[in-house]
């Protein structure tokens, strides 16, 4: 080898850009532009927070599920949402973020979560509609993220998308069951659809013209489609499902456009989205208060577990033969 090669910032940036251009993944210990890192942390954290807060609207119904079957399903679903939050916090930590800081940022309202979870789930039909529309919209958003340029995020998204499919299907099946029931049950479904349709279109974020970061995010492979493209895809997928279900989507302008090959739909109330994001949705305060309470009420568990671990550690040091062998047995024949 000759003289030590100098690695300048420009070289590193060129290598990063080259990796992106070849559609290869950026991995945790790679050099990356500070703005890529901070954008990624913000996006992943916001996504993780959404999963965690997203447990609340449906979690409310676990104790009042109409049957043991529905209760087991709902419990599994809410458990998955917690799991998704954990996968994502884990991905954020590979970028140097600290889990405790992220939790604090959420409960102190310094980081956002998806606006959709600031709406209430008023009846059991909401459980079905959340699965069908909210998780359906989430799938639309998330499938392209399986190809995110940041490796750990892309891998977390692959796991999440596999599990979301169950969420959407259980919701649709629940609604089909209710639609076969009484008129009262059908009305409950229609009411939940009426309340959830527009907020679920807002899940894709502001219109492209109003989304200044989209271009940079697309260039970096952080985002693969624009907000409006994904929103259109969701509408196109959902209309036939609504017809099959026998519900009406609450939009008088919704109709097939032969020329475009897509459904046209009416204007979204962006002022409502802004208000909800700004903290003025129906449940913002309640959601954060609940998350804060869970964090505070869990403090003694975190402390006790740590004290127990320290005690076990000391005992093991004093008497090594008492060490549990089963923990290490599995790893001994690597």
């Amino acid at each position, binding site marked *: 080898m000759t003289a030590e090669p100098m690695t300048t910032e420009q070289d590193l940036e060129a290598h990063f850009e080259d990796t992106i251009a070849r559609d290869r993944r950026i991995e945790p210990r*790679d050099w990356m532009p500070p703005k890529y890192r901070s954008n990624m942390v913000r996006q992943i954290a916001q996504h993780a927070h959404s999963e965690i807060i997203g447990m609340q609207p449906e979690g409310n119904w676990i104790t009042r599920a109409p049957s043991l079957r529905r209760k087991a399903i709902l419990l599994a679903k809410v458990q*998955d949402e917690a*799991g998704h939050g954990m996968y994502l916090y*884990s991905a954020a930590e590979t970028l140097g973020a600290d889990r405790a800081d992220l939790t604090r940022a959420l409960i102190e309202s310094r980081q956002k979560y998806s606006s959709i979870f600031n709406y209430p789930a008023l009846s059991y039909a909401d459980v079905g509609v959340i699965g069908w529309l909210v998780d359906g919209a989430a799938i639309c958003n998330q499938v392209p993220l399986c190809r995110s340029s940041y490796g750990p995020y892309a891998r977390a998204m692959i796991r999440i998308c596999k599990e979301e499919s169950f969420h959407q299907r259980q919701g649709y099946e629940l609604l089909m069951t209710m639609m076969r029931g009484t008129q009262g049950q059908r009305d409950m479904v229609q009411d939940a659809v009426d309340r959830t349709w527009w907020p679920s279109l807002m899940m894709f974020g502001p219109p492209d013209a109003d989304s200044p970061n989209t271009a940079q995010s697309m260039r970096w492979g952080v985002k693969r489609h624009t907000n409006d493209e994904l929103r259109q895809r969701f509408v196109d997928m959902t209309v036939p499902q609504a017809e099959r279900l026998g519900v009406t989507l609450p939009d008088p302008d919704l109709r097939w456009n032969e020329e475009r090959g897509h459904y046209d739909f009416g204007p979204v109330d962006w002022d409502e989205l802004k208000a909800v994001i700004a903290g003025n949705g129906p449940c913002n305060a309640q959601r954060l208060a609940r998350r804060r309470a869970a964090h505070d009420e869990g403090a003694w568990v975190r402390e006790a577990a740590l004290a127990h671990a320290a005690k076990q550690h000391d005992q093991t040091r004093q008497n090594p033969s008492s060490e549990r062998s089963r923990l290490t047995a599995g790893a001994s024949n690597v």
Partner: protein
Amino acid sequence: MSDQGGWPLYEVFLRGKRGLNHVHVGSLHAADAEMALHHARDLYTRRNEGVSIWVVRASDITASSPDEKDPFFKPSGDKVYRHPTFYDIPDDVPHI
């Protein structure tokens, strides 16, 4: 850290089924190794994704640095004779 109760970070490796290597799947926080195993089971094997789990304290892992990528992996770069395609064998030689 202290706010989280100081639970350290563990990396999780799963054997998907018999006959396969353990593969890294993510990380989690736990007070000790035993709790990390239980959390890993709850978090990463809710749908029978694994038959065996390893957890390792993240701070115990030593990794190569991507900054040294070229020099570190260079020794194998120029040893084409380690690959079977390096050798010319006539087409009429069977089973090789």
